[in-house]
């Protein structure tokens, strides 16, 4: 992959901002959230060490949007190109997951398609992983490998920029005067940083490591008591699904305006009691533990079965957001222990 070097982040972002709106992470207390980038601002640009607290899906699949208008049909509005800086490997993987759903051949979501085409993705390496980051447990890494237009790695003297797409290549060529060749020392520094971050992640998550692939751990855990037990403290705030970058359930509802009718599309949550209820009152997941199980099985079994990848990237946002203290890492670990117990029992019987 082509790489170039730049001394400061600001000149890179200013160049991007010439052609489009740019969104950058900013510190909000202990977390990062996205703000519109202002090239005129004096303050230095923040380099987020980990993913933001809000999910990237907001840029592609907003919390609430107009899905249809009638009697006159709605065309997806002319979405202007926009750039988002500071996505991490987990964020890129979450986009890959959403693409499977909303870019599906047979039923493409026109609004998602429009935003996806116009999004310019500038990812960056992680360092000092957050307390809840556990991507390594799910085969993630603290640095991006694909799915970006540009990737930025911070080193002592500046930033290494990796080109990941034609869009990225065109941008670098257009602004070639901004960049220099990457010093050899910078490349080895980057590699060292990456290894250090990976090691730290592994160290942080020693207690959550799984002994079998996650799809086997979750498997068909229909008879497991873990879900009911772990759901005991859940207060149904649904925050886990709102901040999840891969959860994509939505709710369609109709509204009346003065001179037209509209169909709206809004995020929904499978943890909500009435989520699966039908008009007659039947509801297959009345019990909270059943809803927690459905959420995990969707992520680690059903999605894999349908699309060939897992639907969790280990970003840990749900762990941070949980009001009831339900920790997906703990749920997985308990299922892991349960499976180990079962395997042992089987081995004993075999003997």
């Amino acid at each position, binding site marked *: 992959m082509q790489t170039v070097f730049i001394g400061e982040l600001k000149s890179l972002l200013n160049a991007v901002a010439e052609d489009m709106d740019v969104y950058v992470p900013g510190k909000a207390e202990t977390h990062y959230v996205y703000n519109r980038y202002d090239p005129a601002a004096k303050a230095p640009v923040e380099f987020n060490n980990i993913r933001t607290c809000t999910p990237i899906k907001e840029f592609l699949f907003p919390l609430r949007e107009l899905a249809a208008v009638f009697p006159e049909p709605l065309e997806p509005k002319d979405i202007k190109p926009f750039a988002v800086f500071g996505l991490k490997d987990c964020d890129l993987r979450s986009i890959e997951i959403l693409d499977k759903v909303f870019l599906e051949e047979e039923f493409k979501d026109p609004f998602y398609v429009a935003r996806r085409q116009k999004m310019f993705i500038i990812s960056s390496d992680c360092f000092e992983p957050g307390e809840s980051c556990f991507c390594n447990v799910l085969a993630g890494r603290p640095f991006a490998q694909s799915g970006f237009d540009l990737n930025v790695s911070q080193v002592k003297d500046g930033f290494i920029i990796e080109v990941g797409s034609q869009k990225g290549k065109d941008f670098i060529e257009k602004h070639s005067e901004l960049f220099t060749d990457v010093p050899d020392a910078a490349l080895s520094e980057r590699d060292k940083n990456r290894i250090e971050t990976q090691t730290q992640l592994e160290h942080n998550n020693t207690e959550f490591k799984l002994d079998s692939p996650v799809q086997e751990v979750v498997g068909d855990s229909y008879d497991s008591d873990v879900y009911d037990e772990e759901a005991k403290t859940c207060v149904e705030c649904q925050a886990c699904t709102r901040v999840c970058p891969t959860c994509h359930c939505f709710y369609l509802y109709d509204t009346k305006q003065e001179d037209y009718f509209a169909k709206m599309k809004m995020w929904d949550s499978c943890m909500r009691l009435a989520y*699966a209820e039908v008009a007659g009152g039947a509801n297959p997941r009345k019990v909270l533990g059943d809803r927690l199980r459905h959420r995990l099985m969707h992520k680690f*079994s059903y999605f894999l079965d349908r699309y060939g990848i897992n639907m969790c990237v280990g970003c840990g946002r749900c762990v941070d957001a949980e009001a009831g203290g339900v920790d997906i890492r703990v749920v997985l670990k308990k299922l892991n222990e349960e499976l180990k117990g079962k395997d042992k029992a089987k081995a004993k019987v075999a003997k």
Partner: protein
Amino acid sequence: MIQNLYQPIISEIADIIDESPTIKTFVVVPEEEFKFKTGQFVELTLPGEGEAPFTPSSSPADTEKMDITIMKAGRVTGLLHDCKKGQKVGIRGPYGNGYPIEDFAGKEVYIVGGGVGLAPIRSLFLTLVDRIKDFKSVVCRYGARTPDDFIYKKTLFGPWQKIDGVNIKLTVDEANGEWKDNVGVVTAILKPDDVDINNAVAVVCGPPIMMKFTTLKLLEFGFGAESIYLSMEKNMSCGVGKCGHCMIGKYYVCKDGPVFTYDQLKDYPNIWD
């Protein structure tokens, strides 16, 4: 420009037929060409109010209009019942798989229905009788709460029963007035020799409790789980396997169903709830 899958086709309510105290059939004429396979469903929008899934009850061969039989069960269906002839509604779809009619060829088709569950079955029934020679027979067992609750009374009580190759038996939970026929739940009128189980498929549609006990009875008779076709009712909203509301295990009822064999669903919990 990709077609907007959330955009309904404007349609006119051309007629409204009172079927029972709680059920009406709406004859709907879409402004654009609209074709469906029997057993597929549509999302019907009452503009500004809401949307709900229904399986058309007419034959797919009628491409000019579509019958949608609706029981008053919740907010949207309540508002639909207040609709008048000439009013505009929206239609999205058709969605899902429909009944695999070709797999039924040469076999006895054993149809068991309850209540408003006769709506999708009527569409299937009309499709089957259109080419009745392709099937060994069509055997229907249908139950309603009271004689007044039967829908499609005009055809069900007369013309349909006279079609060659068709055998229909009816029952009610509670008899009244003139009713001289069976009394009891529909499973009570199912008999092991109604069809030749080795060369038959069963199609079940009705309230969840009726579907559950019918399925158990059919299994008891010796039907294979893969020969029992269930028309599942879940909270289908987007219709295209994205919004998640209708999931049963790994399946999206809207996309992989709504018709499933019992074999596909039997290992998932709470499928009847």
